[in-house]
């Protein structure tokens, strides 16, 4: 069954987001940040590219409201998990390019392993018992 996850801000929201898919589900808090960090680990990106990248990699399974990246990026900046520098994009615009910091890399590792443990737990509970 295809289930469409809907990435929200993780904070209080109301009716102005796209809500037309059959099933929507808020992601858990921190999920978006984790995906941002993972994407930036591969290469530094600016906001728009970051959004496109996440969308593309998730095969559109995750419907990201693009704007919701920015508050998340600000949070990461504040915690100094990423840093930003003004630069020029491939299309020759002045953009702010985000880069993972060493602290960010460490944080990502921790988050991913804890997420995997959680996912494994959930999967075991959800899996139909064979024996």
């Amino acid at each position, binding site marked *: 069954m295809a289930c469409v996850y809907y990435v929200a*801000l993780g*904070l*209080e929201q*109301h*009716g*102005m*987001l*796209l809500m037309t898919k059959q099933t929507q589900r808020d992601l858990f808090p921190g999920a978006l940040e984790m995906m941002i960090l993972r994407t930036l680990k591969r290469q530094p990106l600016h*906001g*728009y590219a970051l*959004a496109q990248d996440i969308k593309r990699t998730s095969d559109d399974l995750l419907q990201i*409201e*693009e*704007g*919701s990246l*920015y*508050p998340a*990026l*600000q*949070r990461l*900046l*504040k915690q100094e998990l990423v840093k930003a520098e003004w630069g020029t*994009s491939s*299309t020759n*615009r*002045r*953009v*702010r390019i985000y880069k993972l910091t060493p602290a960010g890399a460490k944080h990502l590792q921790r988050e991913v392993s804890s997420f995997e443990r959680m996912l494994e737990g959930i999967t075991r509970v959800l899996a139909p018992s064979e024996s």
Partner: protein
Amino acid sequence: MSWLRQLFWRGRLYRELSEEIQSHIDEKIEELVADGLSREEATHIARREFGNIGLIEEKSRDVWAWLPVEDFFSDLRYGLRTLRKNPVFTTVTLLTIAIGIGANTAVFTVLNSVLLKPLNYPKSEQVVSLHQVAPGAAGLADFENGLLLSPSMYFTYADHNRSFQSLGVWIAGAANVTGRAEPEQVRAVFVSDGVLQTLNVRPAIGRWLLQADQVPHGPERVMLSYSYWQKRFGGSSTVLGQNIMVDSQPREVVGVMPKGFQVVDADFDVIVPLAFERGKLDLAGFEYHGIARLKPDVTIEQANADIRRMLPIWMDSWSNGPGQDSHIYETWKITPTIRPLKQEVIGNIGELLWVVMGTIGVVMLIACANVTNLLLVRVEARQQELAIRGALGAGWTRIMRTLLVESVMLALLGGLLGIGLAYAAVRFLVATDLSNLPRLNEISLDARALGFTLLLSVLSGLLFGLIPALKYAWPRSGSTLRSEGRTSSASRERHRARNLLVAGQVAMALVLLVSAGLMIRTFRALRNVDPGFADPQHLQLLRISIPDSLVAEPQQVTRIQNEIVDQLAAIQGVKSAGFITEMPMEGFDSDWDQIYAEDKVYPAGTIPPLRLYKHLSPGLLQTAGTRLIAGRDMTWAEVYALRPVAMVSESLAREMWGTPSAALGKYIREIPRMPWHEVIGVVQDVRERGVQEKAPETVYWPPMVVGGFGTPRTVTFAIRSERAGTESFLSEIRQAVWSVNSNLPLASVRTMQEVYDKSLARTSFTLVMLGIAGAVALALGIIGIYGVMSYSVSQRKREIGIRLALGAQPKHVLQMILKQGMALALVGVAIGVGAAFGLTRLMRNLLFGVTAHDPLTFAAVSVLLLLVALLACYIPGRRALLVDPVVALRYE
């Protein structure tokens, strides 16, 4: 220091953020255009997929902001702006709130200063009043002070107690100070050793009166109050060591007490040592107030037990004279009931103050209801603005906070104005002493009162802000945004809050009006009581004291008093004059003793009931307008001949002999060494302690009594004249008195009317307070009903227009409007009657001659409120009839 940097760099940070987001959207648009979409379509999609830009920017900024404070300030700025934009609304609400909060602050200030604050003595919680009762002593039951201490009790307690650090007795009185300019009667407090130690307030200069100053016939000393020191000695420290003439006796000034110091509740000019002669004391003489300071860790219960232990010692150690049974006082069942001194000082004023506080609190609630209504109307008008703010991405919590910050700010501004009002009101109250309050000079607007105001402001702000905020902050269907109010008539749901508020206002107004009505009935009932004197406005009073250091011989004292009466009676315009130990309601400590009748048998070991007794001159009763029920007044010839005659009150005559006339010719006396006195007259009952209290059974002795307790040296002169109270009359009175003896100061110069009014002061104060509260409640209630009805009519213009166009009779339309309004009023009255029924019980001790559930008051107030409500509905109803259907419909 990253937060500091943030603070300064934030402006740039935010600009960069906006730029970044804009560039994101541009990039997306370009990409979509490159994919073959039109620019318009691309823009639309880009924006939709990005989400709410304003909200996202705000949320991104929030990450950096010190949020609550920044939001708060922006809300504050916004609130101030909206208030400035609506001057009429702002003025009306501010005034309503200011009056409400001001009144509450004023009353709370009084309540706080009088009831809540500790007394002005160090560790005042240790200071107690040595209160005791004597349930076995007949006649004493209605003696509100309980049984005071006798000097012998004082010595027993002081010598044998285990519970107190210090202990003493005192009595307030008057003393004549002479030898300086005009003779002057000053307020004196007479203290034993231990009183100043118990209160433990250091003198401003000099020293306390000590045990060495309490030696009878020893060196005579005196202390001064701060104000007397300032007034008479210019605050000079050379006063120490000076001699002043107090009651014609030179006394050395040893110290001055600091400003504001009172002996318990007594304001004074001088403190004089009592200097009891220990060897000459009886058991009796119960006229001194006892105070003590408990040792640390001793409870009041333990102290009571200590006193119980000492009572037999007292009876063993002293007697009332040879052949008298010392243990006769066992029949009195003397019981110590020690209580905190504060309780003694504030007396029963607490109940009154709480009732007034409650009343004013209800006024505040009504005011809040009115303000809520105003805010509701305003917020309804702002619905579109709010909807737009919501659509632009304001969270509902944020909108609610904006509304609440506005209302709390209104309340705080109102509170600020209210403090000004309260300050003025308190000053007025203290200056006029309308209410006869204890601790009056301690009343001040202190930190606690200001804290109360702040709390009250914030709470009321939240209270009247919450309803509109809850109602309108929630995101609602898009209809609000699209169209406002024109297409539909008012829905029922929309008016529910306002209707409830109005019904509540009517209910609360009813409670207050009923309370005020009950007080009016009480006041009328009190006014209708015959106090035992007539035409008090034309009865001049003054008090003169003749100390034995001035005139030693008692008979001479009476002759001087007689001469003064003659001189006073000779003044032009005086009908008659006389004197008595004290006039009713004057509030001086009265004399009580056992009264024996010759024809009654008193079993051994019992004491006859205590009776109030007074000494009066011939002619006093006639001067005061006190009626003789039977028999006759005494004459001066009888007085000088020492004829043993007396008069009794009607109630005493009835109690002892059945009828007033049966009392004539009977014989009574006070103590065995007194000859039997023939009852020659029966006097109407006099309300000695105020009209609300039963008249005590009273005996009237002549000024001189063989074998009595001596001739009264301090008496009140009463003068019946149309000129009473005028300045020229007073100066003639002074000349008349000084023509007899120029060393006699006049004190307590006032008319009987003033005494009478003062005895009613608390009732009138309560009446005025409840009256004001009731009037304000009524006014606010009317405004509330009127406001809701006219608003509802204006909302229903279109509906009324249609009805009229379809042929409805104007009469029926009016009826419809009236019915709607009256339904509200009826609900309010019904709730109010129920609430008042429960609440007026709380004030039953303040009532006189009327029950707390007086049907007449309840009915009258209900009818009044309904009539007023009808009027408040009629005016907007009439306006509805003027609606021109064509105009109303053309609006569409």
